[in-house]
């Protein structure tokens, strides 16, 4: 079941479209915002609300990389691995996260605190390498700064 708040937010989003199905991506993002990820149950809740089949919604959910069909940590660190960040040392940042938190791309710390994921160019190329934790972007990241940044996210 969608919660009242989810339902309310979704109805608000649907006002912008002439067709209910168009709200599928908004719906996935709205539900994920509170539940952290999209479980099979969440998927079916959304499908029912939008008058779609579960498979239909799943084909959309699995296409977009910001929609998680597996549980993630309480916080997600997105490491930009595109060209400018690669030139400026993204791999050292990734290595530092691996060393300090024992997670590589696609993994979550054992305490469920942090998931590390690769991301396409974050559009902060003038401050490369960049990473985004949840909704906050950090530029000019060095291996030395990684711990200070990550420690803000408990």
């Amino acid at each position, binding site marked *: 079941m969608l919660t009242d708040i989810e339902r309310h937010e979704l109805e608000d989003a649907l006002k912008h479209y002439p067709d209910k199905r168009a709200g599928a991506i908004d719906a996935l993002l709205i539900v994920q915002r509170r539940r952290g990820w999209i479980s099979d149950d969440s998927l079916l809740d959304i499908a029912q609300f939008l008058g779609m089949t579960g498979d239909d919604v799943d084909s959309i959910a699995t296409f977009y990389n910001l929609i998680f069909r597996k549980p993630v940590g309480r916080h997600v660190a997105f490491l930009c691995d595109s060209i*400018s960040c690669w030139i400026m040392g993204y791999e050292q940042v990734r290595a530092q996260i691996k060393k300090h938190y024992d997670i590589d791309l696609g993994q979550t710390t054992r305490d469920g605190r942090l998931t590390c994921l690769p991301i396409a*160019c974050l559009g902060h190329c003038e401050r490369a390498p960049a990473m985004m934790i949840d909704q906050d972007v950090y530029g000019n990241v060095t291996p030395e700064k990684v711990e200070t940044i990550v420690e803000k996210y408990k």
Partner: protein
Amino acid sequence: MERPLTRYIHPDGSPRLLREYVKDGGYRSLHGLAAGMGPKDLQRLVGESGLRGRGGGGFPTGNKWSFVPMGPDASKPKYIVANADEMEPGTFKDRILMEGDPHGLVEGMLMAGYALDAEVGYIFLRGEYHRSAQRLTQAIAEAYAEGYLGKPLPGTTFRFDLHLHASAGRYICGEETALLNALEGKRAIPRAKPPYPQTAGLWGQPTIVQNVETLYNLPHIVNHGSAWYHNLSRSNDGGTKIYGISGRVTHPGWWELPLGTTARELLEQHAGGMFHGVSFRGLLPGGASTAFLTEEHLDLPMDFSSIPPQVGRLGTGTMIVLDDQTCPVGFVLNLEKFFARESCGWCTPCREGLPWVARILESFEEGRATDDDLALLDMHAELLGPGHTFCALAPGAMAPLQSALKYFRDDFVRHISMGRCPWSNKPAQLRVLV
């Protein structure tokens, strides 16, 4: 030097909200409309201004608009979509505009809507641009409260509604027809063209998809006229351009400059040249899907008409610099991994070919490549090029590869002869023959 787009943007990155925007002349273009400028007048003005699409394609905006059905028989509603899915590696210009001056996009979309008699607009924003989302949401709310949106504009019968759609990732959403599918809540797979979006786009209705920076230019063209706008540039294409540079340069950043500024000026005067101790080898002029330019091209004006097609294209105008301490094969490998991951998987050459290219490049970096692999790369650069795939993603991916094979061929060959990457400290691998 005039910087119409970014003149007032705060250097500290804080947003300009309604009161400040209006104080500095924002929404003044509405007076032009109230004074009797009709949709056709605006279309003509934009055509004369020489404005070309800033998303990378460089298509003349006036021409693009001319295909939209007008008049009482035109199918309604018509849509204006701002392509704010800025994901081209190395590109960050639209973010600067949306974060710094969110009302500029609202005003630009109002102008496009008025010119094409389109009553609904969507801003298709990439999901990662949270700060832009927050500021655009605020700007849209302010514009509604002020009556710029949702009510007939003063002196006209035209009324415009504008919505923000935050996306959920994937580079392919930037392709205009894939974007329309994404906006309709579907998988972002490009559509067959024709029909073109101008006649059958969003939900089958006439639609114009326009890059953010392009839209920001419109109010200034309305306010100052096409001749003024055209004269801002140093070339045949009108206006200014937000250029950017990233990589190992002294001052990576962005600058709004006359269109037609040369790559050398950008690199040496604005970016302060290369880092101490590294030297220049080449640059991608406008994102990952443009071909390399080298020393011999640095004096070319960076615009849409001065770079010969056989050399390359401007793309987004945000440059990525390759230096001599960075392996060109590794550079291209990074790009091809990106394209392989971001392929939507719809057409076979792209879905299968790009990972293959990435694996071959990996074999160069790991010292396993042979002369046959070099030939395979040449073959792919040809077969994944224009005309062989459903959309422009794979041909875009081949532009840096093909040009790297031309300008940096010796480096590819050295990977084969040394049995390792010359830029890596790792020892050569033993070649096991099976």
